[in-house]
C-alpha cells in the first residue's frame, strides 16, 4: 500500500512536472524574423501578420525586425529567432543550414520579378542607358534589390560601382521607390512584388517612377528555419499555420494586406534562377 502509494506519488509528481514543462513551453512566444522584403513600413501589415500567426499557433508572436537582411539572417542562424521571412538570396547563401518552411503565393505563383526603375521623366530604356548615373539598391543581400542588377552587370563584365557613378543602399524596397521618385537617385533595383503592391497601396509614390526592365520570374522570398530545428513542433506548427492562413479569417486579412494569395510548400529548385545569378555574380568577384 505504502509502496503503491509511493509509486503513485512519484508518478503523479513526474506527470505534474511534465505537464508544467509543456505548459511553460506553450506559453513561450514564437519569434519570427522579418526582412524588409515586404511593406515593412506599414504597421498594419505587421499587426495583421502577428494576429493571424498568433491565432494559428496559439502562442504570442514576436516579430523581430532589423535594418539589414544580414542581421535577420544572423538572428536566424544563431537561433535568436525561430524562423524568418528571408529573401531567396540569403536562403541560398546559407542553404546548408536553412530549410524552407513555406513560400508565399502571389498572383497564383510562388514567383516574382526584380524591377529596374527610373524617374518617370527619365528617357532611359535599358540598363545600359543608366550608365554613369546614380542608383539605389535595397540591400546587398537582396535578390531583387541587388543581385539581379549586379548579376546583369556581371554578365557584361561590369561591377555596379564601376557602371554607376554612385550607388546607395536604402535597406528597404519602399525606400528605393522613394529615392527614385524623389529624384535622390536616377534609378533603382526593387522587388517587383513590392512595387506592384505599392502601386495599389500608394499610387502617388510609384507614379514618380517608371519600370525600365523586369527580370525573369524568380523564386518568391520564402519563410525559412534552421534545418536542425525543422522537426520542432513549433516549426511544424508554423508551417501548418502559414499554409493554412487562407483558411482563417485572421489569415485572410493578413494575406489581404500583404496582397498575397496564400502560402505553399516549395523546394530548393524554386530558386534555381537565383542560384544561376549568384554564380554569375560570384564569378566576376
Amino acid at each position, binding site marked *: 500500500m505504502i509502496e503503491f502509494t509511493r509509486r503513485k506519488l512519484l508518478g503523479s509528481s513526474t506527470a505534474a512536472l511534465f505537464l508544467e514543462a509543456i505548459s511553460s513551453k506553450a506559453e513561450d512566444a514564437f519569434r519570427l524574423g522579418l526582412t524588409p522584403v515586404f511593406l515593412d513600413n506599414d504597421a498594419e501589415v505587421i499587426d495583421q501578420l502577428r494576429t493571424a500567426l498568433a491565432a494559428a499557433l496559439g502562442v504570442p508572436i514576436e516579430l523581430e525586425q532589423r535594418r539589414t537582411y544580414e542581421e535577420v539572417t544572423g538572428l536566424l542562424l544563431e537561433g535568436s529567432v525561430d524562423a524568418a521571412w528571408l529573401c531567396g538570396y540569403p536562403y541560398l547563401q546559407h542553404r546548408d543550414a536553412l530549410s524552407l518552411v513555406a513560400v508565399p503565393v502571389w498572383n497564383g505563383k510562388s514567383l516574382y520579378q526584380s524591377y529596374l526603375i527610373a524617374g518617370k521623366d527619365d528617357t532611359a530604356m535599358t540598363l545600359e542607358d543608366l550608365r554613369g548615373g*546614380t542608383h*539605389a539598391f535595397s540591400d546587398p543581400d537582396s535578390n531583387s534589390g541587388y543581385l539581379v542588377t549586379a548579376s546583369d552587370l556581371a554578365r557584361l563584365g561590369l561591377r555596379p560601382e564601376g557602371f554607376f*557613378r*554612385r550607388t*546607395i*543602399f*536604402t*535597406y528597404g524596397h519602399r*525606400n528605393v521607390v522613394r*529615392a527614385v521618385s*524623389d*529624384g*535622390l*537617385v536616377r534609378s533603382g533595383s526593387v522587388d517587383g512584388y513590392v512595387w506592384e503592391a505599392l502601386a495599389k497601396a500608394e499610387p502617388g509614390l510609384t507614379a514618380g517612377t517608371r519600370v525600365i526592365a523586369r527580370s525573369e520570374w524568380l523564386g518568391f522570398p520564402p519563410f525559412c528555419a534552421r534545418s536542425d530545428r525543422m522537426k520542432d513542433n513549433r516549426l511544424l506548427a508554423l508551417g501548418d499555420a502559414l499554409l493554412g492562413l487562407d483558411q482563417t479569417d485572421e489569415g485572410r486579412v493578413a494575406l489581404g494586406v500583404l496582397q498575397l494569395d496564400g502560402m505553399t510548400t516549395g523546394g530548393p529548385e524554386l530558386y534555381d534562377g537565383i542560384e544561376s545569378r549568384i554564380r554569375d555574380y560570384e564569378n566576376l568577384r
Partner: protein
Amino acid sequence: MDGFRRIPLSLRVPLLTAGLMVLLGVVASQQVLSTLGKVQDARIRELAQLQIEALSVALGPHVLRDDIWEIYDTLERAAGETKGRRMIFTVVADENGRVMAATDPVRAPLDSPISALTEGAQTAQTLSVTGDAVQVRLLAPLRYQGRTVGQIMTELDVADLISERLRAGQLLLLGNAVATGVLSILGYLAMRRMLMPIARLVRRMRETADAPEPIPESDLPRGDTEMTRLVKTYNAMTDAVEAKAETERRLAERERFVSLGRLSSSLAHEINNPLGGLLNAADTIRQYSDRPDVVRQSADILTRGLNHLRDVAQATLDQNRLDRSSAPLTFEDFEDLRLLIGPEVSRQEQKLRWQIGASGEALSTFASAPIRQILLNLLLNASAAAGAKGEVSLLVSEKPGVLCLIVEDSGDGLSDAARTRLLSDAPVPPGGGVGLRLVHDLVKELNGCIRSERADHITIVDVTVPLQQSGMPPPC
C-alpha cells in the same frame, strides 16, 4: 526759407514744434524697428542654431558612414515635422563640399558642389533677417564628435518675421502719425497760447493810429514770465509816448501863449506909444480949444495916430483871419509883414531892406499862413539879433520850381541852441523859444529846406520851398 521767415512768429514756432514732433516720431519709429529687427535676428539665430545642432546630432553618424539614404531620410523626416514652418530647404554636403542629400534632391543633386547653392548664405553668428527677402540662407559646419564632418546649408522661411516687421512698421507709422498729429496740434495750440501776448502786442502796435494804447492789466499774462515783462515794458513805453505827446502838447500851448504874448506886446507897443501922443493931442485941443492952429495941428496928430491904430488893428485882423483860412499867398501878405515888423525896426532904428522878386502866380501856390508865420518869426528873430541900428533884409525870389526866402541880419549870428532848433530834428533843449523850431517844422511840412551861413558879418537864413502842386521834389 525766405517764405518760412515771412510766416508770423505766432505760426512759425508752432509749426516748428509740429515739425520737431514729426521728426521725433520718425526717429522713435526707426529705433523701435531697429530693436525689433535685432530681436528677430536673435530669435532666428537661436532657432537656426538649435536646428543645426539637432541636425548635426542626427546626421553626424550617417555623414561619417557616407550613408546617403539615412541622411536623406532624416532630412525628409525633419522637413516633414517642420513643414509649414521655418526650414524650407536643407542640403547636407561632405567635408569636400559635395552634396550628400537634400530635402529637394532635384535642386541639389547628389555629388554636386554645395557652393552652387550657398551664394549669399550667412553664418549662424551673423544670421540676420533685415531686408525684404522672405528667405535667408544659412551655412553652417556639420560637427560631430568634435570635428567637422560636413556642411549644412538651409533656407529659412522668414516671411512671417518680415510680415511681422512690416505690420509693426505699419502700426508704428499709424500710431506715430496719430500721436504726432495729436502732439503737433497740442504743441501748436500750446505755442499759440504762449505766444498770444506777442500776437496781441503786435496787433496793438499795428492797429495804433496815432498813439500806442497800453494793454489792459486784465490781459497781462499771469506770473512773472518774459511775456509779462515784455507786455509791462510795452505798457511803460506807451506811457512814455503818451507823456511825450503830452509834453509836446504843453510846449505847443506854451508856444501859442508866447506868440500871443508877443503879439500882445507888439499891439501894446504899437497902440500904447501913439496912445500917449493921442492923449496929449486931446489934452492940447481941450486946453487950447480957442486956438484954431493948435487944434488943427493936434487934430492932424490925432488923425495920423488913429490911422496908424487902424492899420495896426487891420493888420492884426487880417493876420487872424488869414490864419484861420487857407487863403493863397499874395503880395499883400508881405506888406502886412512889413507893417508888423515896422514898429520893431523903427524902435531899434534899424535899416530894413525889402525886396519881393517872385511872381504872383508862384506865390499863389502857397497858403499864406505858413509863409507869413515863417517870415514873421525869422524877421523878428533877425531884428532881435541885429540890435540897435542894425540891418535886416528880406529877399524873396523865384527860381525854377522853387521859392527862395532869404532873411539877413547884421547880428552876431545864430547861437548853437538856435541853430539846433532851426536846422535839425534833434529834440529841443530845455529853455529858449519855440519860434525857430516852428519855422523848422513848417518848412519841413512844405518839403522845403533851410540853410544858414554867415558871410561878411552878415547872418543869412535861406529857406527854399518847392512851389506847391508843382510836383517838384524836395530841393534838398
